[in-house]
Each structure stands twice: as C-alpha cells, then as structure tokens.
C-alpha cells in the first residue's frame, strides 16, 4: 500500500477524566472512502476534530498525507477539506460570497476565485441560489454549500462529519452522489456516520467505533461475512411475550442472537427461508402467536452487535433512495430521521 492518506497510531483524547477516544489505530489509503460508523457519543466527532487539527490528541499521533496533525498543523490544513457536523456558515452572506471567501482563505489566486466558486456552486446544484443569503437556504442546501466550500481547493483528504444527519432523502441522495463522484475522482474521503446504510453504500472500508475504541474494521462485505449467517427477526403477539420461553422453543433451529428494537427473538439460521415454517410451527406448539417474521441478511448493525454486545443506538438506517414511503423530516431540523429497526 502507498503512504496512507490518513494514519493514526494509538490516537487518544481525554476531556478531564473522560476518555472520549481510547487508542485508535487506522490507516486510510489514498483515494479510499472510509466510513467511520458508530452511535452518538462513540468518539467519531472527537476523532475527526483531532484529524482536522481542531483538537490536540492527548495520546498517540496521527498523520494526514504524511504530516503530523499536532506538529505540522499548517501543512495538514492545506491538504484537507472539512465539512463538520453542523454546517457552520455565515447566514448573512450569500452562497457565492461564502465560496469566494473560502477560496481566498485557501490562497486561491484572485483571478480564479470567481470561476472556481461558480463551478462548485453549479456542481452541488446551487447556481440558482448563489446570490441568496445562506440564511434563506434549507438544511440540505446548507450542507451542499458546506461540501462545495470544503472542495474549493481540491483537497487531498476530505472529512465529512455526519454529512447527511437530519437531511431529507432527496438531499441525502444528492450528497451520496457527490461522495461517489469524489471517490471516482480519487479524493480520499473520511466519512463519519451513524447510518448503517450510508456506510454500507458509500464506504470502501468501514471502521466501527464504540465507546472510543475501534471494534471492527474492513470492507462492508467482509465485515458482514464475519457475522456469516442470516437471521430471523421474530415478533410475537401480546404486550410482553416471554422472550426467554420463545427463545427456548426456537433454539433447535439455529443460534439465538441479540434482538433489535421491537423484535422479540432473533435467531441466526443456516437454512435461510427454509427455516421459517418449522420455526413458526415450533412457536405455535409452544403457545406463541407470531405477529411477524422476517429473514434478515447480515447488516453492519449485526456486525456492531456481534462486536460490542449491543445494537447501534436507535439502529438508525438512512431512508432508502427513492422510497416513496420514507418520512421526509423538516430539512431545517437538526434531528435525525426516525429510527427504523434493522
């Protein structure tokens, strides 16, 4: 592998007595899209803030394009583009003005500032809004502008911290397309997300972080293959069905595993769909009424559960592209979309 675009060795950050990041080792190759997946409070943003020189590590070290984030921060800043979790934009300025300011701050020659800004504004589909103040933009438009600003100097490494949190499906799809295009152009992208599908769809490799530690790393396919078998998510009728008893009834057909929200019993099965009929029969004989049963292929959430012993908080998945039933939250709202059980 050529020199990593991003490399961390035992990277740590503590706030007083709280260890937010507890020794992360990772290496991201040039041109790779690396998905950093974890629940709220896992340490994703703290890690990103250290990598983009906004926070100093309290242990270990990290390099970006070969430059140490603590000892050579100016060199690092020249090579990175950053779109942080909250699109911190000046709401009183127009999109074009902000782009041009960002270009000036990155030392782009004056004669190329305007055309470069216009090109990127067009690329993220904001040409018609370029002369409007950013305060009038929707949440999705702000994120797209933020992304365009992060790209103004053609960075070697782009950091996107939860770029689609709180976005409606259309805006999310637009951003996904842009990330794919960046990957095709060879830009290294470090993407934090709490959305399983986002990491699955966009990332070449995924690192799963929990409680400040990297608990798993690999391609989405390899990680899911580690978990192996599909599982049946079984939901039983009744206010509080006896999950233990139901588990005992179905255990002969597979291996019990951690059930997600709203699911009574989860059973890893070797036979796939062929296991459904005998499992339903067994439950019926044990006196349980089945409300629903679903065969689920391994997901990154299964990987997360396997590695940590608990499900990703809220088990949030991004709304599927083009799903007409997907709930579109207020684009200006900061809250993530409602959780969908994995």
């Amino acid at each position, binding site marked *: 592998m050529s020199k990593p675009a991003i490399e961390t060795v035992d990277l740590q950050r503590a706030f007083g007595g709280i260890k937010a990041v507890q020794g992360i080792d990772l290496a991201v190759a040039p041109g790779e899209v690396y998905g950093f997946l974890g629940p709220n409070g896992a340490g994703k943003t703290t890690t990103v803030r250290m990598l983009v020189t*906004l926070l100093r590590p309290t242990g270990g070290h990290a390099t970006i394009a070969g430059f140490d984030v603590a000892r050579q921060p100016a060199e690092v800043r020249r090579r*990175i583009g950053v779109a*942080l979790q909250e699109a911190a934009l*000046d709401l*009183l*300025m127009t999109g074009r003005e902000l782009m041009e300011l960002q270009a000036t*701050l990155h*030392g782009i020659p004056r004669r190329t500032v305007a055309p470069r800004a216009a090109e990127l504004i067009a690329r993220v589909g904001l040409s018609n809004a370029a002369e409007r*103040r950013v305060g009038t933009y929707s949440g999705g438009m702000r994120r797209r502008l933020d992304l365009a600003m992060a790209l103004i100097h053609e960075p070697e490494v782009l950091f996107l911290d939860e770029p689609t949190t709180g976005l409606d499906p259309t805006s999310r799809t637009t951003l996904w397309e842009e990330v794919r295009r960046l990957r095709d152009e060879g830009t290294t992208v470090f993407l934090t997300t709490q959305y399983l599908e986002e990491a699955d769809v966009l990332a070449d490799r995924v690192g799963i972080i929990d409680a400040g530690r990297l608990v798993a790393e690999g391609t989405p396919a390899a990680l899911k293959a580690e978990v192996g078998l599909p599982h049946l998510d079984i939901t039983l009728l009744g206010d509080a069905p006896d999950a233990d008893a139901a588990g005992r009834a179905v255990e002969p057909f597979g291996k019990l595993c951690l059930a997600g929200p709203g699911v009574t019993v989860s059973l890893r099965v070797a036979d796939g769909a062929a296991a459904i009929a005998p499992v339903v029969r067994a439950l019926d004989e044990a006196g349980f009424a089945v409300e629903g049963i679903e065969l689920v292929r391994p997901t990154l959430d299964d990987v997360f559960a396997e590695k940590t012993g608990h499900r990703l908080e809220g088990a949030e998945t991004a709304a599927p592209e083009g799903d007409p039933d997907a709930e579109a939250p207020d684009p200006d709202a900061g809250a993530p979309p409602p959780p969908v059980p994995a």
Partner: protein
Amino acid sequence: MSALARVAVPSLALARRTLRGALRRPQFLAPLVIMPTLFLAINTGGLHRTTDLPGFPKVDGFLDFQLAGAMTQSLLLGGVMQGIGAALEIEGGFFDRLVASPIPRVSIVLGRILAGTVIAAAQVLWFLVLGIVFGVTIHGGVPGALLVLSIGAVAGTGFAALGVLIALRARNASTVQGIFPLVFVVLFVSSAFFPRALLQSPASWFAEWNPLSYVADGMRDPIVGQVSATPVLEGLGAAALLVAAFVGLAVLALRGRLRTA
C-alpha cells in the same frame, strides 16, 4: 507571497466579511450610535449650565464638550459588538471553520479587529456630522476633524480587540454582554463626560491614569479649540497603547485557546 501578504490577504477578506455582515444587520449597528446620541441629547439638554462652573474649560457650548464623550462611549459599544460577534462565531462553529483553514492564526483575530477600525471611523464621523448639524464649530477645521477621526479609529481598533479578547476568554455571547458593562465603569471614571480638573478624588486619580481620559481629551481638543500638540499626541498615544495591549492580548488568548483545545 510575502509574509505580510500572507497575513494581510485573509485578514482583509475577513474584515470585509465582518463589515458586510454589520451592514446587513442594522439592528446590531444602530445601537452603537443611537444610545450615545440619546445620552448626548439628555446631557446637553439638562446639564448645559455645567459650563458655568468655575474652572470649566472655555467652550462654545456643552455640546461641544460632550461630543468627544459620546464618541468614546460609542466606540466602547463598538467593542461590545465586535466581542459579541466573535463569541457568536465561536458558538456557531464559524470560528472552527477559520481555525481549520490554512491562514495565519493572527488573521482570525485581525479580520474582526480591522472591521472594528472602519466601523469606529464611521461612528466618529456620525458624531462630527451630528455636532455640526446642531451648531458645533470644529475649531481645528478639516485637519482637526481628521485628527479626531484618526484618534477615534485607533481607539476603536483597541476596543474591538478588547471585545475579541473577552470573547476568546468567555467563549459565549451572553458572558461577553455580561462582562462589558464593567468596561463602562471605566468610562465614567475618566474625563470623557466631565473635565478632569473638576473631578474630585478618588475619581480624579483614576481619570489621571485612565487611557480613556486621554482618548476623549485628544478627540475633544480639535473640536473645542485650535489643535494643540499635547492632548492630540496624548490621545493618539493612549489609543495606540490600547491597540498594542489588547491586540497582543487577543492574539495570546487565541494561541492559548488553540494550544489547550
């Protein structure tokens, strides 16, 4: 690019942005002159016979004397505005965007302070025009008016730096707003609103050592009489001292903040 240009280009770009924002948010800009103007109207309307006090400097009217006090008060309010603006940038994350940019750290501070300089000159100009409209004669003529503008702009730069310094230490706008009234106490123990010679101890002692006294007297001198070197130079010197002290401290505060981040 020379070292100077590396600092100047982003600093000026950020100053332009701050000025643009100020013009687009008149509700923040207007109080800088409206409140001191109201104070000026109340003081000159109700206390105009103060000029009859024995030992009061020879002036055409109380408005002539008070004008420099209103300017100083307005400039301090300008510092408050820059402090709140900087704190809002820290709270909102725009500050992080600047920190993550490949610009000299000093430009992050200088951008806002330079905008403070321009706004300060505009504030002083407002009061000069206001004074002339209400019958004040600028005895120092155009050169005198330019000196008043210069002292005001330099002092305003220092107050803007003070605002940024407080914002960097406090990190939120409400704390900046809470701390700044203390600064006004310093204004009232200066000769901004009352001649130093008529103040009694301990106020006279404070006023003697208070740089705001020299800033106000320096701006007052070309208004109430022919330009004389001592008060003008003292005014410029005091204003320059404020700039040196507060810009230096603001830059140190930024470095300290980034070092401990």
